[in-house]
């Protein structure tokens, strides 16, 4: 009951915030920004507490409005554990983003239409929460479109820039192709139930013919895969994310693309099960290929936001991988293992939203201080922006999944979920899953190389251009927003058990029963079963690391020179002009480019080999049917006549 009230008041909060900021911006832009940030934090806290309560109580709850929608009836939301988890994910990231937006909008967008930006910001969060909690196919599609359109407005918000229009166009086009497939999928399902509500879709899988189910699976994969950025449907992501304002990029990358994940889980586990195990292998293979190729693109990218966008694609691959393995294991009958895999995937989704949100917001901070995101022009910012640099270091460590940060906790679990496949009796799974695990490891190392390059070329050594030399630390609200996320990355990293306890009941709500769970945990210790397979104690890792780090210092103090170090100029073969001698980011990733030259197809590879042939095919088809549209009235009348006759013949048969 409390959950319902909290969620409803958060909805009210978002709508009030949107209306109020729009009205206030006519009076004072600054006031409107402050109101937007504060109301955003309050509303997100409300929805966060509502979803946390729902997850802790392990039960679904309803929110019903007396609002009648044609074809649908009453507007009703059903928040089951899966939806509650996604609401938690959305609200948890939106709190720091709201705080950050105060400083960011003040420094970057004060001369623009701030009221509209703030209002859309609240509507965007609201639409995402509604998408994951709605219980009706038609409402879902409408909200899905609303969410896409609002984010489209953000992508084209930079009106002076032509590339933003291009990016917006690609984004709109790709997401609409995805939506079209989703629409067809929903219509096919509705044919069998005569109803669009998710409750009637549940467990419809038994009634559907196998071929139709496969078709549905492909449509869902295309529809939601476009949003989630699975390769080769990812092409909009590196275009659109860099164009949006940074706090929106954080939300888009951290949360919005996760709605694709939500859709895939909802459709496949609730609606389409039972399904053949090969579906899971298909999804897992696509995911791991997405992860590996996307991170190779990221490693050679020199625009920070594009780099982060590619890394988002990579992380979506990592998130989808355990979902794929959960599907395989579920249909093979290993439900406990499947439940564990699913939890790993969702856990990584949460972690990714935190560190990617953090990194995108820091990219915004760097952009507002230096007015460039080109790695070739940045440098030396650690002295000018020490806090930003520190948070970026934490974000990098978390995204490269190094202990003791949250990325490591979830990646450790994903590795284990893949390695636990040794219990499966099917040879194909036994061979493929460890290979996936190895490729995941490869992704991790390339990710480390990528973020070493990003961090060192932005923050270390000397500035490479004049505009960077005058950079100064960003405002307090931006630091609080990013700092909160950095702290969260560490906290979840050392106490993942809390998140796991929230997640543990989600598989059951999706009918993946886990009678004998493969893991057990207490407050600082996770153990995988069978007994002694693996265990994980992140708190102890942190304690041990903090104990060991001073040892080196003590040893060097006792044995080494007692004097402090001497500071001097770096030797540069006797030439001055230090900044010109720095190793450039392009040079840094050049060996990678050489080694992966076969894989590192230029980005327009997909453009040339997939999209252009597709477009040409459609063009040719249009050309071929053009003679039918001759433009003369007699022919059209003839068509009507022929149709009439065919219809009459059809009816008489």
């Amino acid at each position: 009951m409390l959950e319902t009230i909290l969620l409803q008041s958060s909805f009210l909060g978002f709508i009030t915030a949107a209306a109020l900021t729009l009205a206030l911006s006519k009076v004072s832009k600054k006031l409107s920004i402050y109101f937007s940030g504060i109301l955003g934090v309050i509303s997100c806290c409300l929805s966060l507490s509502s979803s946390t309560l729902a997850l802790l109580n392990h039960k679904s709850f309803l929110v019903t409005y007396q609002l009648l929608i044609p074809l649908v009836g009453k507007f009703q939301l059903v928040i089951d554990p899966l939806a509650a988890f996604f609401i938690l994910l959305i609200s948890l990231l939106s709190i720091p983003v709201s705080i950050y937006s105060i400083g960011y909008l003040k420094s970057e967008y004060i001369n623009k239409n701030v009221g509209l930006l703030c209002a859309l910001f609240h509507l965007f969060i609201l639409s995402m929460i509604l998408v994951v909690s709605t219980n009706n196919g038609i409402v879902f599609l409408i909200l899905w479109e609303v969410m896409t359109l609002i984010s489209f407005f953000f992508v084209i918000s930079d009106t002076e820039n032509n590339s933003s229009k291009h990016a917006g166009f690609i984004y709109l086009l790709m997401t609409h192709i995805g939506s079209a497939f989703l629409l067809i999928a929903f219509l096919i399902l509705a044919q069998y139930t005569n109803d669009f509500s998710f409750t009637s879709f549940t467990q419809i899988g038994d009634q559907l013919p196998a071929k139709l189910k496969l078709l549905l699976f492909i449509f869902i994969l295309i529809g939601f895969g476009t949003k989630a950025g699975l390769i080769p449907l990812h092409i909009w992501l590196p275009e659109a994310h860099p164009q949006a304002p940074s706090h929106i990029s954080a939300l888009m990358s951290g949360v919005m693309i996760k709605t694709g994940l939500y859709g895939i889980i909802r459709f496949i586990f609730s609606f389409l099960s039972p399904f053949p195990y090969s579906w899971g292998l298909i999804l897992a293979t696509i995911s791991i290929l997405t992860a590996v190729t996307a991170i190779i693109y990221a490693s050679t990218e020199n625009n920070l936001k594009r780099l982060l966008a590619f890394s988002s694609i990579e992380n979506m691959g990592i998130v989808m991988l355990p979902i794929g393995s959960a599907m395989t294991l579920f249909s093979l009958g290993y439900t406990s293992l499947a439940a564990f895999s699913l939890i790993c995937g969702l856990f990584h989704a949460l972690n990714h939203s935190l560190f990617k949100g953090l990194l995108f917001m820091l990219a915004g901070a760097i952009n507002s201080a230096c007015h460039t995101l080109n790695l070739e022009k940045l440098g030396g910012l650690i002295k000018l922006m020490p806090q930003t640099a520190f948070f970026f270091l934490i974000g990098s460590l978390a995204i490269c999944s190094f202990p003791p940060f949250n990325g490591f906790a979830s990646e450790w679990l994903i590795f284990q979920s893949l390695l636990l496949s040794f219990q499966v009796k099917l040879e194909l799974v036994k061979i493929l899953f460890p290979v996936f695990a190895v490729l995941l490891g490869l992704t991790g190392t390339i990710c480390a190389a990528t973020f070493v390059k990003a961090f060192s070329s932005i923050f270390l050594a000397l500035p490479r251009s004049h505009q960077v030399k005058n950079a100064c630390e960003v405002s307090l609200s931006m630091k609080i927003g990013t700092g909160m996320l950095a702290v969260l990355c560490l906290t979840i990293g050392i106490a993942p058990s809390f998140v796991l306890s929230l997640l543990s009941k989600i598989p059951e709500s999706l009918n993946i029963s886990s009678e004998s769970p493969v893991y057990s945990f207490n407050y600082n210790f996770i153990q995988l079963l069978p007994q002694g397979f693996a265990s994980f104690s992140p708190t102890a890792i942190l304690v041990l690391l903090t104990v060991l780090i001073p040892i080196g210092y003590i040893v060097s103090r006792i044995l080494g020179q007692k004097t402090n170090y001497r500071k001097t100029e770096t030797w540069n073969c006797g030439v001055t002009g230090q900044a010109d001698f720095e190793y450039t980011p392009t040079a840094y990733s050049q060996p990678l480019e050489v080694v992966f030259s076969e894989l590192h197809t230029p980005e327009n590879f997909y453009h040339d080999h997939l999209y252009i042939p597709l477009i040409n095919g459609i063009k040719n088809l249009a050309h071929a049917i053009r003679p039918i549209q001759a433009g003369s009235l007699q022919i059209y009348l003839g068509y009507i006549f022929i149709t009439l006759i065919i219809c009459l013949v059809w009816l008489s048969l």
Partner: protein
Amino acid sequence: MKLIILQFISLGAAQILTVLLLSPFINTLIKKIKALLQGRYGPPLLQGYYDLTKYFCKESVVSKHASWIFITTPYIYFATTLFASLLIPTFYDIASLNVLGGIILLIYIFGLGRFFVAIASMEPGSGFCGMASSREMMLALLIEPVMLLALFVLVLMSGSTNIPSIFNLPMLSSCSFCPFYSFCC
């Protein structure tokens, strides 16, 4: 409980000390064998200790463009190596340490150290350091998948990611250091 903690700390300290004291010798031994195989004499077996003494007597010089990362990286790297030495049974098999995270933790702890070395070497802003850092990461990502594949085979055979269970594999008992040859890379 107190006794267990005391035992743990003393064993851990003993393990760290053994590794610290022996590793210069083993490092030189490897160099010596390599040299002998190539038909050279190689360094004297205590060369590692001579080198260390020399380095400790030297003054440290830090580039004036460097920040706190450059100063703290040696300690972090040292700590990660010590951490790894605690996980691998060398002097004594500290079984209780396997609750930490097993073989995957070991790999990522090495990764953590490498990450800091790679960013610290970019600090002075010299072209040579950048090249070194780039190649370090490059080599790491070529080696790591191979190493993971080798290790995962052992994990699947022993049915556990805990390091002692991998050691106790019957086929490895004759050459129990096998899996860790791959770390030499």
